[in-house]
């Protein structure tokens, strides 16, 4: 049993775990303390001074997020002195903050705005010198330092969760600013474009590059035939933007909303995920039986591709040559669907909705144009952008009746659905690979050994008498561990799934942003993933190769997985890039 200590908070006695911080102790006691810079296990600095409390015997107020509890500690969390101090701190933070709150993308979800409101702050109490702020606009992200409060949550996330550490604090004192080495743009440093910094930012200093206007312009253009498809993870998070609980599956409402916005066809990336399994599963079987390069590593996550190309280019031959589901969807629309329904390519616009900001740069990569001269995908918007688009179009999301996607390219198996969670691609692949190789129905469809939000999972799966060693990693810090294993020659895996974001796409950089108070107390990744697994449990169509639309697509067009045409449309090349 864990040791306990006795402490007194606001005059009341509590017994809490020894070795924790005052902030956690107060949480255990049900007392709320505001925080700004604190992000559990990632950013514990005591920098912002918003979580200060009064401790008996201490001359100054202490930052509760880094103050350890000890026996007989006496604490007050809401005295006049504490409240006044927090308010002044907030007003000083606001003194050089760009307060364009009315139109800020984080209005309503900004942690600073919320606290300033709760503490009755005067945003213009202190008017001092303003910093010269830097703005960095890339294809995937906008960094606006005029809204930065120097909490360093982005830095810690980039360094600890993603192990790339391309942003940090430069200069000193008043001139301190968050930026890249030699003040370069994120475009010119080895950033992987994951956007995890965005979901860790308490304010609007980091945001996705907004493509809503670009997409709506196409939708409003009557000449254009605009198709859209949402990724698996979008449906288990979109509801959060409309006040629904984390882990609500809003698939039917999402499809209905996309149709109401005015897209000409609404498809589903779950279908393209099934297509990926057909191609990638077949590629794996071929590599395994014909002595190809092993281990084979998945290629669905563009953030991961950005990482391996820059940090471990010697392992590029290990990557599956399959395009990501987003790109397979676009390629199939432009090569197959356009021809089947006589849609001129110059009138056809392909849009995807992704939990991801790296998808915005993936679609501009070379070797991603199955229809010569036309990008496979024209625009990629995030879950957050879709939510804003739905609101802008005046759609009453919560009261929408469920709808189904259009056929063909609309039906997905739940093997495709679970792509969004770490281990999902592996499980979907194993379901198909094992059944195809063994030529008999699976006794057990669930591969629990690759589920769960742990950063690294290892398992051995028997396929037709052969022990297939698989590994699943999510978050670049974990991917790095696996790559170092490979580099040292210690690993003997056959198949590795890597997703760039911790927990997989459900926790992608384009997903709804939950405040630190929520991030610190519940496992958002697990909740969103559970919505996928419960849908999978209830579903009938649970294997990619049994998807009737997939079968039809191969019959009508690609003929068979890894065929010449499939290679032309659905596979790609990678480029070693200098860091």
């Amino acid at each position, binding site marked *: 049993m864990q040791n306990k200590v006795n402490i007194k908070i606001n005059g009341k006695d509590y017994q809490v775990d020894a070795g924790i911080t005052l902030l956690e102790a107060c949480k255990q006691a049900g007392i709320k303390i505001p925080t700004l810079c604190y992000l559990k296990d990632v950013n514990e600095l005591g920098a912002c001074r918003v979580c200060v409390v009064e401790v008996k015997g201490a001359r100054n107020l202490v930052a509760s997020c880094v103050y350890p509890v000890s026996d007989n500690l006496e604490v007050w969390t809401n005295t006049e002195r504490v409240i006044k101090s927090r308010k002044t701190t907030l007003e000083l933070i606001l003194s050089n903050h760009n307060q364009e709150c009315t139109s800020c993308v984080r209005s309503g979800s900004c942690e600073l705005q919320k606290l300033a409101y709760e503490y009755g702050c005067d945003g213009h109490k202190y008017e001092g010198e303003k910093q010269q702020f830097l703005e960095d606009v890339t294809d995937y992200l906008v960094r606006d330092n005029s809204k930065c409060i120097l909490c360093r949550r982005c830095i810690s996330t980039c*360094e600890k969760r993603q192990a790339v550490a391309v*942003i940090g604090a430069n200069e000193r004192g008043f001139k301190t600013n968050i930026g890249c080495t030699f003040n370069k743009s994120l475009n010119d440093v080895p950033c992987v474009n994951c956007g995890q910094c965005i979901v860790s930012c308490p304010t609007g200093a980091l945001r996705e590059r907004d493509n809503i206007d670009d997409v709506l312009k196409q939708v409003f253009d009557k000449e254009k035939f605009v198709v859209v498809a949402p990724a698996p993870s979008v449906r288990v998070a979109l509801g959060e933007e409309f006040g629904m609980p984390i882990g609500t599956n809003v698939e039917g409402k999402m499809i209905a909303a996309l149709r109401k916005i005015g897209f000409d066809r609404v498809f589903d990336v779950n279908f393209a995920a099934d297509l990926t399994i057909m191609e990638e599963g077949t590629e794996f079987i071929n590599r395994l039986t014909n002595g190809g390069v092993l281990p084979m590593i998945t290629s669905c996550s563009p953030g991961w591709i950005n990482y391996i190309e820059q940090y471990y280019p010697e392992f590029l031959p290990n990557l599956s040559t399959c395009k990501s589901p987003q790109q397979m969807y676009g390629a199939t629309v432009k090569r197959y669907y356009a021809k089947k329904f006589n849609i001129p390519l110059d009138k056809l616009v392909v849009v995807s909705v992704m939990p991801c900001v790296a998808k915005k740069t993936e679609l501009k990569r070379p070797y991603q144009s199955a229809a010569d001269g036309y990008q496979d995908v024209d625009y990629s918007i995030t879950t957050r952008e879709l939510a804003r688009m739905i609101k802008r179009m005046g759609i009453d999301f919560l009261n929408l009746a469920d709808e189904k996607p259009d056929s063909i390219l609309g039906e997905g198996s739940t093997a495709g659905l679970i792509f969004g969670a770490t281990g999902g691609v592996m499980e979907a692949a194993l379901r198909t690979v094992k059944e195809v190789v063994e030529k008999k129905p699976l006794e057990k469809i669930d591969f629990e050994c690759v589920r769960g939000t742990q950063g690294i999972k290892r398992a051995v799966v028997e396929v037709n008498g052969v022990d297939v060693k698989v590994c699943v990693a999510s978050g670049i810090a974990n991917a790095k561990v696996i790559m170092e294993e490979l580099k040292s020659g210690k690993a003997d895996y056959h198949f590795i799934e890597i997703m760039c974001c911790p927990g997989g796409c459900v926790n992608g950089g384009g997903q709804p942003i939950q405040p630190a108070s929520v991030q610190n107390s519940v496992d958002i990744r697990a909740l969103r993933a559970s919505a996928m697994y419960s849908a999978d449990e209830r579903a009938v169509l649970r294997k990619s190769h049994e998807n009737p639309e997939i079968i039809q697509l191969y019959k009508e067009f690609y003929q068979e997985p890894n065929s010449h045409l499939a290679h032309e449309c659905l596979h790609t090349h990678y480029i070693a890039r200098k860091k």
Partner: protein
Amino acid sequence: MKENKGVCFTETPEQKVQMDAVLEQYGGDESNLLVVLQEAQKIYGYLPIEVQKKVADGMGVSMEKVYGVVTFYSFLRTDPVGKYNFSVCMGTVCYVKGAGLINEKLKEVLGIDDGQCTPDGLFAIAPTRCIGCCGLAPVMFVNDDVYGNITHNDVEDIVEIYRKRAKNL
């Protein structure tokens, strides 16, 4: 800050041997970063991007981490010192008597910012705190030469002295 036009970085074989030895000795532990940067500055005189990259690779830390430390400490320089260093005294007396204007004029004439060096490696600007000869205010040093009671109108003539001197070397 103006874009660093930069003196082209070159490395002698001796410098390489010395730097490799420093990284060999301290490279394994990230907490040695500051020591390594100080040693590197001793070896190269300054810490341009090439040296910072060497340090980052040698210590297994990111370029940004190195740059963050370099820009935090004022004694670490990203630009080389010039052959002729122009230091205008920014002490109170010099400042009220126009040192700020002199420094601005210097930047204009040399086309560089505070702390930078001209691409030919000849001139650098490094304003300084009070040097204690307030009777001569405003004061400017060029290496060990002292120019007192000057105005911003004298700057071009003074720079010209050193341009000529450099030519005759």
